[in-house]
């Protein structure tokens, strides 16, 4: 084979790795019954491809070839280890049995393998930080270092979370399966929360100098797309819509100097119209199912904002109406706070201020910086400068995020004496 042809085969191997390595892994986990064994087999299968494909040509069904190669490599490895450990011999026998050799590996059930992998990584018996790390590692194919960097943690911490999660999957025997219909709503909810957590971590970092860590949001959107391709449930559709509609504002929410720009002050010509159109269509689709939940409602609110030509021209009555439904569907003080801000836009600052003060008086959100900055903003608009100052200062004491801090300091500086 010429140098050129060999180079093209290497490019093919790379392309197959990018498009199919997670699918191959998902199937190998099912066939081998073990995450670590499957990862090793995946690595061996691609190593074999790099060696063989240039000499024998790229197989007609590369994915099936890789699954098969990975499985044989794993059985080989177990047979070698069996000289030292009798239990490995038994496992190798079982895997090599004809019954574990279904003809339809490459087609039937393979999409199910990816769903199995997602539901296993997001099993509620695993701690939330492990669900996130395992999903990014196994489903998205991120390295431990990449995950650690994105979450501002040390790589050994992430590695330990992943090892512990895999140990629990093995020792407590968390099954590699898609939940039954009865369990599905709760289990899907856990998956959606993991995806949203990844998105939010990328959209608004909890601390640090940079407000956005784009890669994580992109990863979450990719996960959202994969999920609705495999399991088109209305709330999964709603979540993807919500992420796209938030993402559409990314370019407008920070100034060229890296300063935070609030929704009302954003340059709407910088919003991504393609993402808005896609998000709005998904909202429609989820709402028409009539089985939607909180993610869809939040997406519907984001869509009303996205379609308004400006802050003043926003349909605030519709937004308040959607918040009314959301407060019933998913009651939480944060949702109430957002509803109060919408009421302030519809009925004026004093109506909103009354609602926020009622939430704070109840003892909720006292430590939440956005509650105090929202209160400060309404006091400022009402000319109650001293109260505004106190609330901005309170908010400042509660946030570590550098752009948020600069924003609050700027607002404080703008207050009249």
């Amino acid at each position, binding site marked *: 084979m010429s140098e050129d042809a060999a180079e093209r085969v290497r490019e093919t191997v790379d392309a197959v790795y990018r498009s199919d390595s997670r699918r191959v892994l998902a199937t190998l986990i099912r066939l081998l019954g073990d995450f670590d064994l499957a990862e090793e087999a995946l690595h061996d299968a691609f190593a074999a491809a790099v060696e063989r494909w240039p000499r024998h040509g790229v197989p007609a069904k590369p994915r099936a070839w890789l699954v098969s190669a990975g499985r044989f490599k794993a059985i080989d490895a177990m047979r070698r280890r069996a000289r030292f450990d*009798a239990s490995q011999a038994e496992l190798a026998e079982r895997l090599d049995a004809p019954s574990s050799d279904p003809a339809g590996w490459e087609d039937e059930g393979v999409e199910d393998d990816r769903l199995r992998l997602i539901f296993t990584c997001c099993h509620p*018996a695993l701690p939330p930080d492990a669900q996130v790390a395992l999903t990014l590692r196994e489903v998205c194919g991120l390295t431990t270092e990449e995950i650690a960097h994105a979450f501002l943690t040390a790589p050994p911490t992430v590695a330990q979370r992943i090892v512990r999660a895999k140990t629990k999957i093995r*020792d407590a*025997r*968390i*099954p590699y*399966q898609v*939940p039954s219909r009865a*369990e599905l709503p709760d289990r899907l909810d856990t998956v959606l929360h993991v995806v949203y957590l990844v998105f939010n971590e990328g959209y608004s970092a909890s601390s640090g100098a940079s407000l956005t860590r784009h890669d994580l949001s992109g990863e979450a959107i990719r996960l959202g797309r994969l999920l609705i391709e495999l399991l088109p449930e209305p709330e999964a559709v709603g979540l993807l819509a919500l992420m796209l509609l938030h993402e559409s504002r990314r370019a407008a929410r920070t100034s060229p100097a890296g300063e935070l720009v609030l929704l009302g002050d954003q340059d709407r010509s910088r919003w991504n119209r393609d993402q808005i159109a896609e998000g709005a269509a998904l909202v429609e689709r989820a709402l028409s199912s009539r089985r939607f939940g909180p993610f869809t409602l939040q997406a519907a609110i984001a869509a009303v904002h996205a379609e308004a030509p400006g802050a003043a021209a926003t349909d605030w009555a519709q937004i308040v109406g959607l918040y009314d439904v959301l407060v019933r569907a998913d009651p939480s003080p944060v949702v109430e706070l957002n509803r109060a801000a919408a009421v302030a836009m519809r009925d004026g600052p004093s109506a909103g201020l009354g609602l926020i003060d009622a939430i704070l008086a109840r003892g909720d959100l006292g430590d939440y910086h956005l509650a105090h900055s929202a209160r400060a903003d309404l006091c400022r608009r009402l000319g109650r400068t001293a109260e505004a100052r106190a609330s901005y200062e309170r908010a400042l004491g509660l946030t570590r995020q550098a752009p948020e801090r600069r924003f609050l300091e700027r607002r404080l500086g703008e207050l009249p004496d």
Partner: protein
Amino acid sequence: MKYLCLIYDEEKRLGGMSKNESDAFTSEYFAFTEGIRKSGHYLGGEALQPVQTATTVRIRNGKVSATDGPFAETKEQLGGFYLINARDLNDAIQVASKIPSARLGTVEVRPIQEFNQQ
């Protein structure tokens, strides 16, 4: 695979039940046990007497000490257990979620450690 379901109840709350409530709770337990016998999950199970009857045994410096307790400052106390046979953790969770105390207290599901005796 075997799992132990450890049942934690608020003894105070169980003690505060009326006779009717307490009878109903007990018959729920009988029905549950019957159900998992039939389904083949049941391997064993007992209810424990209240934590005031507990004795803690230790050997320290070669001497056996038996003391009253333990009285950890927890709201819920270990009140009983089931040893079950389940296909996997999801199956075990299904069984555990039907234990009557899962509604009032907490059920901890722990896989049994198997030792290879070779």
